[in-house]
């Protein structure tokens, strides 16, 4: 059998749109299709578009156990995070101006919190434990009288660990603190039942779950009723929480993608877990290979591995037949290694040596076997080039070396 190169193993960056989803979307674009403005009340074009939007709202709500009235369309998880965090902090500011979140959150949460700091809010950024998980006691201890909001992501985008949202949420409920969860990486990967989960606000994205880019949603709990101040003003769409003409084709795509996720999640996760375990088994017999993040409490779709004494960007260069991402500095202009890996307490060498493999619907066993062989070859070659590997082999403790920093 022939393999198609390069192999895509970056599903946490984005997923391709499922063919079934693309087809539904195409039906909502042209003159022959369902192109109307869902807000048009005076004719059938508007009514038909509105019906499609509401069907999609039902589909999204169904995947996460919400009432459709609790789903607000946005342009994606970044906007949902902004609306949730700024919107709730501003609406409830009389209660207090303190926010609790984590250092390993996505930038859409961290930067939103930073923006609120400039408005006079105070934010506590909690570090995870070395396994990537948030300690419940530490979380509880960080909550104060004036804490108005806590925000913790469901599934981490870099290391795939799954936080204990149920427990974190019930602590917030007890203390009357609004709890927001960024679930961009969670849909279709972990079961989400908002009937049971004590969560007030939850952000969703379509394009991590085989839907299109540019569309997402925010769950806004009705019981107890949670309010957010609008960040986008205009025609008063989405019950005033988010103005802007609804993008029917995008919304229909997200709905169909979430419907498929609900149907196929169980079997898909089993298949992906098998692929992930196969890759990990194939890599583990190499020396000095470390898994980043807890192995058990993580989604099967993610394997984040540090290959000690090999620099991440040079490894990615050697792995040009596979599309992966690195927590190494050099892939960005920042020259800082991944802030997520550093928050785990990983030393700089390991943080610089990490590769994130993320799998999905179209990953095959043949691809995984190819990747194992390729990674082994590349790591072996780069270690031959690495003075650090030679020193390690000579028994030199690298932490005892005085490096000439420049």
């Amino acid at each position, binding site marked *: 059998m022939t393999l198609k190169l390069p192999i895509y193993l970056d599903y946490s960056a984005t997923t391709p749109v499922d063919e079934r989803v693309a087809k539904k979307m195409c039906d909502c674009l042209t003159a022959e299709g369902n192109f109307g403005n869902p807000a048009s009340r005076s004719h059938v074009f508007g009514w038909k578009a509105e019906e499609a939007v509401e069907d999609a709202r039902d589909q999204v709500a169904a995947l996460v156990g919400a009432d459709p009235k609790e789903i607000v369309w946005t342009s994606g998880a970044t906007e949902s995070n902004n609306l949730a965090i700024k919107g709730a902090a501003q609406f409830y500011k009389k209660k207090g101006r303190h926010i609790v979140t984590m250092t390993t959150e996505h930038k859409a949460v961290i930067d939103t919190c930073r923006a609120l700091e400039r408005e006079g809010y105070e934010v506590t950024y909690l570090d995870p434990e070395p396994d990537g998980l948030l300690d419940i006691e530490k979380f509880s201890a960080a909550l104060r009288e004036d804490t108005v909001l806590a925000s913790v992501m469901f599934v981490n985008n870099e290391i795939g660990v799954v936080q204990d949202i149920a427990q974190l949420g019930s602590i917030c409920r007890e203390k009357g603190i609004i709890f927001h969860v960024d679930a961009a990486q969670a849909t279709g990967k972990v079961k989400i039942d908002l009937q049971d989960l004590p969560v007030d606000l939850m952000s969703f994205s379509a394009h991590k779950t085989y839907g299109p880019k540019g569309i997402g949603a925010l769950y806004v709990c009705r019981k107890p009723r949670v309010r957010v101040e609008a960040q986008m003003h205009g025609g008063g769409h989405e019950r005033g929480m988010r103005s802007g003409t609804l993008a029917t084709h995008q919304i229909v795509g997200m709905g169909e993608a979430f419907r498929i996720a609900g149907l196929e999640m169980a079997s898909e996760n089993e298949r992906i877990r098998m692929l992930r375990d196969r890759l990990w088994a194939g890599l583990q017999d190499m020396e000095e290979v470390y898994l980043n993040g807890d192995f058990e409490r993580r989604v099967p779709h993610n394997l984040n591995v540090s290959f000690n004494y090999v*620099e991440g*960007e*040079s490894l990615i260069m050697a792995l040009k037949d596979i599309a992966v991402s690195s927590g190494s500095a050099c892939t960005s202009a920042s*020259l800082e290694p991944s802030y997520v890996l550093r928050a785990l307490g990983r030393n*700089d060498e390991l943080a610089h040596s990490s590769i994130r493999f993320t799998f999905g619907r179209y990953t095959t066993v043949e691809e995984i076997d190819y990747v194992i062989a390729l990674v082994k070859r590349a790591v072996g070659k780069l270690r031959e*080039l*690495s003075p650090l590997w030679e020193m390690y082999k000579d028994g030199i403790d690298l932490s005892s070396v005085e490096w000439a*920093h*420049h």
Partner: protein
Amino acid sequence: MAYTDKVIDHYENPRNVGSMDKEDPSVGTGMVGAPACGDVMRLQIKVNEQGIIEDAKFKTYGCGSAIASSSLVTEWVKGKTLDEVKQIRNKDIAEELELPPVKIHCSVLAEDAIAAAIADYQSKHVTA
């Protein structure tokens, strides 16, 4: 990030990879950079009695541009005197490899490695 063909060539076929005996009086070793910064470069030169670099070896932990910079430098220093080699500037390396601005530090590191290797060699040959 797109690499130039020259960087890819040195990365895929690195020249003069290896190690020499650090204790050998004719060998100068320069190790620069730090794991924390994501780059460690080790350049070794072997200098003959005429003061000419007759061999050079490197090992580098770092991105493709860092590997290419050090590989290139081993080619450039061979057959030259220490004084000639001291004239090599990071700008020359960056220009030869067409490094983008974010990778200029790799060429700086390579220049530092040359200086460190020469300094190590000369420290073994202090004439009173």
